[in-house]
């Protein structure tokens, strides 16, 4: 839908002027500052989708899925029987990790496919390579926060924490990435923001591969930590 509005603002100098008058804070948050501007296809989607809507969508889905699959199941008392079976809890956590990853991959993949199909229709003129990279960074983001929610639920018996902590970290990381240019004291912290690490305007500039790799490695370490910690605690009764 957002992409379909694009033809109406494409090449519109009024819109560029409007944006130029935006407060700096908004420009930084929504990725309006960097080259390309909102009136190019890639710039428009970076701003409208990749800097806010899609990460939000993927994060909500990934955190929900990660928290539900362990913390939620424990909360509902359904792990009591399953974990009395001859399986290692750590293996169960890793298997659930695979399920979360598949879910994130499917959602990101479908999003990418929808963009690719929409591109010729509304004339966004996207670079297919940049689009693929943007989708990869989206999936990496989902993986990190989905696995964090899963691992937290595995480590401590609290569904609230399994949702709250990843959501809080994601919000903080998003703001750090958006505002570090304006608030100088935030600048040193940009390195811990996955948004910054992977590149914040993927459709225009592609992704930062070492950053994507870093995010993926951290995600895997978080999941492994959850699998290790789950063996060391008591399962709660509902």
């Amino acid at each position, binding site marked *: 839908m957002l992409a379909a509005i694009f033809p109406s603002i494409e090449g519109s100098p009024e819109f560029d002027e409007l944006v130029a008058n935006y407060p700096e804070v908004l420009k930084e948050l929504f990725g309006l500052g960097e080259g390309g501007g909102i009136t190019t296809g890639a710039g428009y989607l970076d701003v409208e989708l990749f800097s806010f809507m899609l990460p939000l969508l993927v994060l909500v889905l990934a955190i929900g899925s990660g928290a539900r699959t362990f913390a939620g199941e424990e909360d*509902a*008392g*359904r792990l*009591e*029987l*399953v*974990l*009395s*079976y*001859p*399986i*290692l809890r750590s293996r169960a956590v890793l298997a659930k990790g695979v399920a979360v990853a598949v879910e994130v991959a499917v959602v990101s993949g479908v999003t990418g496919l929808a963009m690719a199909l929409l591109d010729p229709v509304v004339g966004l003129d996207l670079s297919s390579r940049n689009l693929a990279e943007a989708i990869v960074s989206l999936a990496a983001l989902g993986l990190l926060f989905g696995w964090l929610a899963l691992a937290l639920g595995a480590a401590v018996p609290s569904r609230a924490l399994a949702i709250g902590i990843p959501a809080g970290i994601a919000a903080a990381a998003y703001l750090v990435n958006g505002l570090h240019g304006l608030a100088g004291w935030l600048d040193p912290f940009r390195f811990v923001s996955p948004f910054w690490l992977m590149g914040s305007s993927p459709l225009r500039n592609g992704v930062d591969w070492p950053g994507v790799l870093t995010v993926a490695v951290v995600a895997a370490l978080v999941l492994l930590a959850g699998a290790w910690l789950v063996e*060391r*605690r*008591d*399962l709660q*009764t*509902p």
Partner: protein
Amino acid sequence: MDRMEDAPAIETLGLSKTYSGGTRALVDLDLRVERGEVFGYLGPNGAGKSTTIRLFVGLIRPTAGRARLLGLDTQEDGVAARRIVGYVPGDLRLADRLTGSEQLDSLARLRGSVDRRLRAELCERLDVVLDRPIRQLSRGNRQKLGIVQAFMHRPELVVLDEPSAGLDPLLQAEMRTLLRETAAAGATVFLSSHSLDEVQHVADRVGIIRAGRLTDVDAVEALRERALRHVTVTFAESVDTGALARLEGVRVVRVDGPVVSLSAPESAMDALLKAVASHAVRDFVSEPADLEEIFLELYRESGDGR
């Protein structure tokens, strides 16, 4: 895994669990259950029955001591120990959206090896509802699924936490038969309950737990003999209760005109009946004492005064 062929079905040594809040749910449990035995684990709510059972199946970790199931340590060989165990949780929660048969399929895949014919047999025997989503099932029908999944891999040890909750009397009887058959076939049954009545017809021995401590292990017969009966006698007219009170083990609880309430062990029943019969009697009621009173009696005997 160093599983010993002659190891007992259950052996615990100083098994203890203190929860992080400081609650001592289980204190120094030393218990041995032989193979082929049906063991009843009796205690009031909150006594530590579920804690013991959850330690057996590795859902919680002991703070001290150890437990071995057929020689397999529940901590070190947890997966191997759980392979030979069937477990019915006290508060059974299943996947509500699945049908009964989908749930059993999913658990069978998780287990790896399941005797399909046995599973079908059990379902038929307990009249399990297989084709409806579990969320539509009554508590009793869910419980039946819980029982089937615990038996469908021919476990060597079945651990059931208050299994007859929600089952009607007919099914309770069917389940008792199933437990007896299981023991007769050489497997072991560990059954927790808060009701002596539920356990006494099926168990060989009974352990009594209270406030986290195993206070008594005895054959059911012996326990029953020791258990006090509540006897209420309605005489035709007021009588002198002195002769009754002098009988071994008999205590006069209350005298209300011609109605006399007594407590007496089974061993004193014959003498009591004969003494009562020397008067004209309108009514004679003898009821088994409830478990709490048996506990109190056991405490009096062991003299730890709690």
